[in-house]
């Protein structure tokens, strides 16, 4: 398991640095900009009253209680599960399906490593990668912020990071599970990306339309505290995000333990369609070779 873990983490180092430093710089920029808002808060509130209030309600923003930190929360943290979700979906669907589609898994699993060790070695590496990215993002936010203006400490800023991490891990685990269930990695990525966008809008629209509150309970964004976690982490919500993630990981492992490792030509990479809906089939050259 540790050989797989080290290899996978080394493989991800470019992405860890790219995403971590990128989001760290973005965090530093946002926290320094919003730190400087304190002096202009009255004018900002006044200016915002001219905008459609639905725009702010979508993000759960109350102009009366607006602070520089609340700006940071809305502009930075509220979008972070969706932004980091791109990484999470890529990492989740790639974890096994990428190597399988490339044909690398065939060689790796011919070595004395169990599917369990391979699965959890790779999963642990992905989790460590996500923690490192979020840690770099935290470092950027802390470096750029003016504590007095934002009225939060670096320690308090760990709360939102935990909240971001929980949401991102959920998207990663869903990507992983769907990559084990659907015929291709691309299909799994598309499905999770759609769910992220849909969940984001359902949660936002529920702030405008109370009738949507029921369906919004199914959106992971509902249980995402974002910047508000700096003033008290909602452990129940964190558990509500992490528990399904753990269940998705276990289901993905269960599926991986039982399925065939595919190579080109063995099994199908497409969705099983009724015979009359299937396009005329030509066996690819590699398929003829592989069996």
């Amino acid at each position, binding site marked *: 398991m540790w050989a797989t873990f080290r290899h996978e983490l080394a493989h991800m180092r470019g992405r860890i640095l790219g995403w971590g430093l990128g989001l760290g710089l973005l965090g530093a920029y946002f926290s320094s900009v919003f730190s400087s808002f304190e002096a202009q808060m009255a004018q900002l509130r006044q200016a915002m009253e001219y905008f459609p209030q639905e725009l702010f309600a979508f993000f759960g923003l109350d102009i009366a209680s607006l602070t520089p930190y609340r700006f940071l929360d809305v502009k930075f943290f509220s979008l972070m599960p969706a932004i980091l979700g791109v990484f999470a979906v890529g990492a989740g669907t790639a974890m096994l399906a990428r190597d399988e589609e490339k044909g690398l898994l065939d*060689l790796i699993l*011919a070595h004395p490593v169990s599917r369990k060790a391979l699965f959890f070695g790779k999963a642990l590496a992905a989790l460590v990668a996500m923690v490192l990215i979020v840690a770099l993002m935290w470092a950027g936010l802390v470096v750029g912020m003016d504590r007095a203006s934002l009225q939060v400490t670096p320690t308090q800023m760990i709360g939102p990071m935990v909240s971001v991490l929980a949401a991102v891990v959920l998207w990663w685990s869903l990507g992983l599970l769907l990559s084990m269930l659907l015929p291709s990695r691309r299909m799994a990525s598309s499905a999770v990306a759609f769910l992220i966008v849909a969940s984001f809008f359902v949660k936002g629209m529920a702030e405008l339309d109370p009738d949507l509150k029921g369906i919004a309970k199914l959106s992971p964004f509902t249980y995402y505290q974002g910047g508000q976690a700096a003033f008290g982490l909602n452990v129940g919500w964190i558990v509500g995000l992490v528990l399904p993630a753990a269940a998705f990981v276990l289901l993905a492992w269960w599926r991986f333990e039982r399925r065939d490792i595919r190579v080109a030509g063995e099994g199908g990479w497409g969705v099983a369609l009724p015979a009359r809906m299937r396009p005329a089939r030509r066996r690819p050259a590699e398929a003829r070779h592989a069996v």
Partner: protein
Amino acid sequence: MENQPAIAIHGLTKSYGKVRALRGIDLEVQQGEIFGFLGPNGAGKTTTIRCALDLIRPDGGSIRVLGINPQADPVAVKARTGYLPGELQLDDNLTGEAQLRFLNELRGRKADWTYVRELAERLDLDLKRPIRNLSKGNKIKVGVIQALMHRPELLMLDEPTFGLDPLMQQEVLRLLVEAKRNGATVFFSSHILSEVQAVAERVGIIRRGKIVEVAGVQTLIHRSMRRVRIQFRHDVDPAPLLQVPGVALLKRDDGRAVTLQVEGEMDGLLKAVAAFPVVDFETERPSLEEIFLAYYEDERNSHKTEE
């Protein structure tokens, strides 16, 4: 344990949806032998090998590799086996050496690195080059090294020389013979029948998911029909020769030469030929390739019949 087969497969079946890839494979490979696995594309060679390594799960039947059920304890089987996939893929971001070191890590660092360097030298492979810059042939060399580097008890190689130049093909075959000499069992599939004939002691022929023949290479060749060409001193009527059981006329060049096909023992034909003034008498056994093609022709004919 000593006398048990290295590979024992009984009644192995595997389907991909409606496609029946294996229809009840029965096969035993003895310890310490080189076994060639022959079959046309799509016959089920790769599927059989991948079932034996627990990469895919069979629908029915039993497999024992080195006495172990690969579905129950795949790690134990793989620890003692070296495998070269037919569709070898390597990590393009690594060098040959880094790839081998990673695979060696998965093996618990069991490889002898001096042996790895020796293999790379013999195969004329620069391990420092990134895999993305290697030709297909050089990638296969990396694959051959990873299969051999821990000196496994059993080698399962899917087309090990496919894509190599003739010199390297010979070197890989030498490595297989050396592995056998050191006590390993070698099970390999190939399309190059001359190389199977050169190194394998026994062959199995698979056709449409079933084993149609398992025999020693020499037995297979000797059991098959021979071609006999007889040159006479003057024109003769070959009718008395064709009366001999198992003899058929293939070609009559002129009155002085005939080419016959002989099935079974030669005794009857030799006695019949003794009555004629013979100038030359040549016999020829078919190559493994011709025998294989005969099975393949049967398959094509059965396909036509089904259609």
